[in-house]
């Protein structure tokens, strides 16, 4: 980043020669018809993906040998920019001669790699990776059509970043294992969000099911909660700070006591927390059915106290107000 990005406007300069050549002369463009299929003794498959309104649309034609499931011919038509046309052209080429199953494993990343002039230099700039995703999606459509199965059965994982094919699981793992705190960290570790940026937050180029900002927030929140639980389990109540103590008591109220009393239409609130002679006094106030209930001063009280003691330690006394 920085110096090389400051001037901008280098979109086309970042295309590989292969991308440019295929844009100028896409060798596999065109259609395949029922007559072509008959001539090749195969089955015709025509798959569509995308729409003009989304900026990209592609149609893939296959003739497949029904005995060997080998793709004997592949052609495409595409509404899209140079990258979309060049990747569709390469995608059609990569399909040819493969079985349908083998073709179903071709991803947009394979297509992009095949378009590189040298192995280490991307064929298209990051924001254009998006345009190669169509090539992947349309193959999946063709496979589903040929096999007569639902396309969803071909997806084994939830993909968050389609450009880089990064799954939800990979992203959550990366956040947890490396304690990632920002979206930029996620992009750095997993490449997700480093291409067309649609998956970073709502309002980008495309609507997505999952966004990195939400995944980050939810994963961090889950991590925090686990950390708190862990601290409470491992830390002795007496050595906690006052705030920690309060939070720990509140948590027992929230997660155990109130649901327990709610079963009988009752409720309880934490009023105060005060130390006296080494014992922590938990002041409570009964609500709902508990207020005025005969057992509130006896059985219920001792149940609350023993529960708190069990969770937080013995030096606790519950005082109803």
């Amino acid at each position: 980043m920085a110096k090389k990005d400051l001037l901008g406007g280098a979109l086309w300069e970042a295309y590989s020669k292969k991308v440019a050549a295929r844009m100028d002369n896409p060798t596999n463009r065109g259609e395949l018809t029922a007559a072509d299929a008959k001539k090749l003794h195969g089955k015709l498959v025509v798959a569509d993906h995308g729409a003009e309104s989304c900026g990209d649309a592609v149609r893939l034609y296959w003739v497949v040998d029904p005995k060997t499931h080998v793709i004997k011919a592949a052609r495409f038509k595409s509404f899209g920019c140079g990258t979309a046309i060049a990747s569709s052209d390469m995608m059609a080429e990569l399909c040819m001669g493969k079985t349908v199953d083998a073709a179903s494993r071709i991803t947009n990343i394979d297509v992009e790699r095949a378009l590189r002039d040298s192995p280490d230099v991307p064929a298209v700039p990051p924001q254009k990776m998006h345009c190669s995703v169509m090539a992947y999606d349309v193959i999946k459509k063709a496979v589903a059509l040929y096999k007569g199965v639902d396309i969803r059965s071909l997806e084994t994982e939830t993909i968050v970043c389609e450009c880089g094919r990064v799954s939800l699981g990979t992203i959550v793992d990366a956040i947890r294992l490396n304690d990632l705190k920002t979206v930029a960290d996620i992009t750095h570790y997993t490449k997700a969000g480093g291409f067309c940026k649609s998956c970073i937050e709502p309002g980008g180029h495309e609507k997505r099911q999952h966004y990195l900002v939400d995944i980050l927030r939810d994963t961090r929140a889950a991590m925090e909660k686990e950390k708190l639980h862990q601290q409470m389990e491992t830390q002795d109540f007496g050595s906690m700070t006052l705030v920690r103590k309060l939070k720990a008591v509140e948590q027992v109220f929230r997660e155990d006591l109130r649901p327990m009393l709610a079963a009988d239409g009752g409720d309880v609130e934490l009023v105060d927390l005060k130390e006296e002679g080494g014992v922590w006094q938990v002041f409570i106030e009964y609500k709902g059915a508990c207020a005025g209930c005969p057992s509130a001063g006896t059985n219920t009280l001792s149940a609350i106290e023993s529960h708190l003691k069990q969770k937080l330690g013995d030096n606790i006394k519950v005082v109803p107000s």
Partner: protein
Amino acid sequence: MDRIYLDNNATTITDPMVKQAMEPYFCEKYGNPNSLHSFGTEVHPDLRVAMNRLYKGLGAAEDDDILITGCATESNNTVLKGVYFDLIKNGEKNHIITTSVEHPCVANTCRFLENQGAQVTFLPVNKDARVEAEDVRHAITEKTALVSVMWANNETGIIFSIKEIARVCREKGVLFHTDAVQAIGKVKVDVQDAGVDFLSLSAHKFHGPKGIGALFIRRGLKLPPLLHGGEQMSGKRAGTLNTAGIVGMGLALELAVDNLNYEATEVRRLRDKLEDGLLKLKDVMVIGRRELRVPNTVFISVRGVEGEALLWDLNKNGIAASTGSACASESLEASPVIAAIGAGSELSHTGIRLSLSRFTTEGEIDRAVKAFTEAVGRLRAVSSSY
């Protein structure tokens, strides 16, 4: 192969006369105009000539201000942020009105001010791709501090009713600013006649140099400076004066105004010829009625052909145009204008803008029509949606 430049709404060739006029200020008259010695003072007469040309070119009065800025982006920022600091931050007002089709330097500045607590109304355009004075009137509240509406749109070339909008603002006691970048040199721009309070312009859009612009401020109005520093421009815009740029912009504006008649007749004739040539293609649509547009612009949507792909083919043939297609922008944001006029979302990726200048020739237009037609033929043969 000679290249053909049909992207004059992005920038223009510097008029060779302008370039020549600027040359002395690099190695000969290079003094700082604010210096007291002869190196500084010897450029004063030339700067005065340039300022006279600017005032005359815009129809400004002696007691109006025309601040020299670095670009129209700076001029627009000065107005929007200045009004924010003077009227909104202190709670006196809270509201700015603009349109949904402004250039990013207005739109993004407004979004920034929104984050600072200002309320911003982005008025949508109607089917003519315009915002009318009545739309503005209805949006004005007691808390409105400023209305900012472009004089002409950069993508479509559509001209807005600036005089009527300015009148509404004056009636309502609201300040009015217009970004006139795409209007100068294409249609008559007179600040007195139009009755605007603030007006921004940029020299490189009318055959002046890049890196210099101006901001007209009506007499009696004050804005806090965007750039604080020395006493240049009476302290209203600090920074060493760009002598060559000011001289170049002054001459460029004079030439642009002198050529307005040529623009309205000959440039318009060539644009219409280009447009008629392109309209012979099937399933194309030009955005905006001709009589509502500046004379140099045509924005055309070609069904079944994505904008960047068409641009690629035109470029192969030496023709420079521009596209609002999301695919060609680094940010992948769809054209706000096509989205705004509700022309059907499938068209939002097919828009191509061709913009002429007084340097465009008839032969270039003929070649452009031919190349465009061929490119559309090739790409429609590849297209899955045509």
